[in-house]
């Protein structure tokens, strides 16, 4: 609906502005597409080329390495690498815990904020948004300290209550990193969802109230379905976001050995490039990660547009 409306407006305006055609448009578009080609398209194409080649040394390992076309061999090696596949599995698990926690938390908080009895809405909005103003590196650092025994009030308090827990233990470190992501992103999405809730026509809610629906009932069966479109956009960006996972494990890996240098695919690719110095494999891994992102976002958009239609 809205899309159609937009296109018609655009068309009408286009006709009105006859004479501002291709050449002017090009003038406005060239700067963007120039940086777009330099920063996105060219790097991806070059990596594709690199990923099909390999550096091979002569039999004795002396002399200049030669670049040889090896077809899909790098990709096969990446997929056969146990550490890479473990990273993918770990990322999947991360996604499974993180997405419901973060999105669920954001929905609940936004609905609470929109409840008629909520006080001080402005202040609460500002407070939940606070973590988003904290860079990922700093957020990871703060939590790394909050997880470290001896310095952390959290560990100390839990010990006082008789609970011994090591947040950086290899079995617990994944949820610990999920928590950092939840902390960073929930507030941001609360604001988006709260704005969507504000757009719900009050007449509908009033009618529901007259019909005897309580606050909770109204939230579940009226407000929630009406914010589904906003929710599907959030899901899309959240899932793309999880594939980016790099900063938090990179910082945490300095505080504990539980996070290895190949813990998630992005770390694996970084390790391939800068520790193992195998640029061709790093290129192949990057292409795999980008491809995975493309497939996932396609799937989510398809799914959400089907959901919105029905």
């Amino acid at each position: 609906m809205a899309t159609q409306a937009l296109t018609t407006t655009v068309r009408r305006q286009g006709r009105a502005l006859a004479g501002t055609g291709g050449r002017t448009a090009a003038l406005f578009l060239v700067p963007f597409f120039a940086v777009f080609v330099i920063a996105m398209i060219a790097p991806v194409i070059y990596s594709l080329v690199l990923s099909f080649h390999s550096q091979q040394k002569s039999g004795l390992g002396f002399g200049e390495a030669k670049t040889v076309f090896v077809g899909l061999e790098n990709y096969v090696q990446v997929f056969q690498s146990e550490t890479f596949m473990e990273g993918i599995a770990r990322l999947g698990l991360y996604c499974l815990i993180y997405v419901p926690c973060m999105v669920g938390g954001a929905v609940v908080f936004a609905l609470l904020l929109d409840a008629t009895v909520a006080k001080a809405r402005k202040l609460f909005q500002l407070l939940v948004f606070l973590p988003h103003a904290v860079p990922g590196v700093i957020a990871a650092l703060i939590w790394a300290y909050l997880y470290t025994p001896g310095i952390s009030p959290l560990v100390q308090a839990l010990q006082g209550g008789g609970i011994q827990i090591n947040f950086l233990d290899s079995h617990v470190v994944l949820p610990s990193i999920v928590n950092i992501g939840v902390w960073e992103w929930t507030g941001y999405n609360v604001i988006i969802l709260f704005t969507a809730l504000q757009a719900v026509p009050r007449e509908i809610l009033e009618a529901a109230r007259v019909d005897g629906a309580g606050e909770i009932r109204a939230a579940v069966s009226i407000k929630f379905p009406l914010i589904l479109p906003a929710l599907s956009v959030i899901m899309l960006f959240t899932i793309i976001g999880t594939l980016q996972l790099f900063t938090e494990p990179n910082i945490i890996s300095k505080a504990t050995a539980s996070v290895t240098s190949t813990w998630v695919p992005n770390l694996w690719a970084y390790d391939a490039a800068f520790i193992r110095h195998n640029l061709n494999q790093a290129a192949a891994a990057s292409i795999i990660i980008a491809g995975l992102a493309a497939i996932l976002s396609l799937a989510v958009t398809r799914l959400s547009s089907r959901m919105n239609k029905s």
Partner: protein
Amino acid sequence: MSTPTLSRPRSTSPSQQGHRRGGPAFTRGMSNRGGGFASKLTVNGLLLIGSAYMVVPVLWLVFASTKNAADLYGTSAYALGNFSLFENIANVAQQDGGLFFRWLSNSVMYAGVGAVLGSLISVMAGYAFDKFQFRWKDSLFGFVLVGVLIPNTATVLPMYLLASLVGMTNTVWAVLIPVLCNPFGVYLARVYSASYVPAETLEAARMDGAGPIRSFFSLGLPMMMPGYITIALFQFVGVWNNFMLPLVMLQDQQLLPVSVGISIWQGYSVPQPEFTPMVITGSLLSIIPLLVAFILLQRFWKSGLTAGSVK
């Protein structure tokens, strides 16, 4: 492919919002009869707990930055030990001849250029997509949307590989050029242009003999200013928070932004705990500019979130 969800601009028209804002006082007063004391307590209590989870870690950072290394490990977290905040700041400032402030100004430079110039580039493109008719418009916009959907980190290593091919790694350009590219900004700018700049105004300007470039800079851009500021703000935060790109591209410590710099200090603090107060104080100093920007520019980030996702 992604058009169905992403190109659904403006759902809350200004009139609707106005209506919402005008209405609630009455409606809310009515519904308050429904909410008893217990539900008021539950809702606000839960909101308070949620906000505490968000705020307490930042508060810890503030308290921790007032302590020296001994107190950090020795005293309870929220107690004030010997107040050593200024001592810590002095240590941060003196380390490696003021390197920290060099990092901070690098961050300001990268984020500032990315925000001001990068957003201008995005706004120009978004304006063109909204206001001009040209061939391949839809397919070009499709490229922009694909750009929105590719995760940043997936292109960082490819960018590094390309930059090392042309010998650009370890220069400011290796960070500055990529941050100018903001496809999401183009998408937002198209939405803003559609809702802020009426075609009639541009038509009138054209009648008066203004060329398209002149009417963009003297009419379109000023009318889109709130949108421009919003895009710039988000771009500023994005670049300020960027970690993987500068980590990969830069080796010279003099060129690092503060995010990578602090992570290097964190690396030092593992064998040398006396570095820990500096990491903590440095972290606090590096988030203050962003906190201030967010509180002052609340109006803009809220409108940015609305335009980007709800519509």
